[in-house]
């Protein structure tokens, strides 16, 4: 891989926040999202010759972000959920109720509810709610019709709301 020039790096890095928001939706925390974001740009620079329309760089980049995040989730499923040393640390020093603020607790619950969604619903929800993308952008990234995007989003929102409220009770 060759290190890209300043111009190209600057042009693509302008979309870093869009990419980060999307990665954050798929990742378990901000640090993981940041790593994913770097991976997305590394992949993007390796695939720059595949970028046919420079005007569509944002959608192209977000498409790479989506596949990178889905690959990451797939890898996570293959790994044990809790590492041995983390489990040992948690047993030795369990966090008290005050250690977890209510906000972060809710965030964790919401993440769990989103993770429990089927993949197609989850990706459309993350792209819309975390990425803040329009329906047209969603349709272009996912290569779907806007109607399909909306129906998936509708189901995803209902499911995540039900799961989140169910957890709350």
């Amino acid at each position, binding site marked *: 891989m060759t*290190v890209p020039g300043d111009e190209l*790096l600057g042009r693509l890095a302008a979309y870093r926040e869009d990419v*980060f928001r999307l990665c*954050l939706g798929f990742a378990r925390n901000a640090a993981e999202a*940041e790593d994913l974001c*770097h991976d997305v740009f590394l992949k993007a620079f390796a695939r720059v010759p595949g970028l046919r329309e420079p005007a569509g760089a944002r959608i192209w980049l977000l498409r790479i972000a989506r596949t990178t995040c889905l690959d990451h989730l797939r890898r996570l499923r293959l790994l044990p959920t809790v590492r041995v040393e983390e489990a040992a640390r948690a047993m030795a020093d369990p966090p008290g109720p005050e250690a977890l603020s209510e906000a972060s607790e809710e965030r964790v619950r*919401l993440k769990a509810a989103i993770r429990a969604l089927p993949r197609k619903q989850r990706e459309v929800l993350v792209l819309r*709610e975390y990425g803040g993308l329009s329906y047209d952008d969603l349709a272009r990234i996912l290569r779907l019709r806007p109607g399909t995007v909306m129906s998936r*989003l509708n189901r995803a929102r209902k499911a995540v*709301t039900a799961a989140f409220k169910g957890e709350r009770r």
Partner: protein
Amino acid sequence: MREKQNGTRVAELPDAIRQIIRREVEDGLADFGAKDFEADLRAKLRRASEAAPRRFFFLKTAPAIGLTLAVVGIGAAILWLVKEPPRTGPNVLALTLEIAPGLANLEEYPLPSAGGEIGPASMAPGLVGRALFSAAGAAASVSGPGTEGAIKPLPRTTLEQKMRLLYGDRTIERALEPFRDKFKEV
């Protein structure tokens, strides 16, 4: 609450959930924005570009070399087997006879005719039988024409004689030494 888009109604997320997401995104972006993204990215790109040749070697070059050697090796083995049909080595033969002496039972296999027709023995299984059969056939063809079309039974021979017929005198003595007393005549 529902949002409307092109006449299609899509369920909205409750405000509580939207706020959680908004807060998470804002917190994440605040941390993320505080770091020098381009510098970090450049460092990672440099590391990746340095690691690329090594990875290319292990992922592409080395398997390609291995595959080429395997193909050439298999091809050479095939050519060699065609040119030099395999023969059982004396040690292997002796060991085989120790394990399964029945393999050397040759009475049922007829010799080929002097005309060189191939008898049923050519298809018969049996390590020693096949090898001996072909060796005896070769010897018969060298020694001159016999009765035209006649199929002679294989002469009863000792194991040592059979192995001499197959392998000659030089290596056979050493191979047979440990088994000399163990075998009965076939």
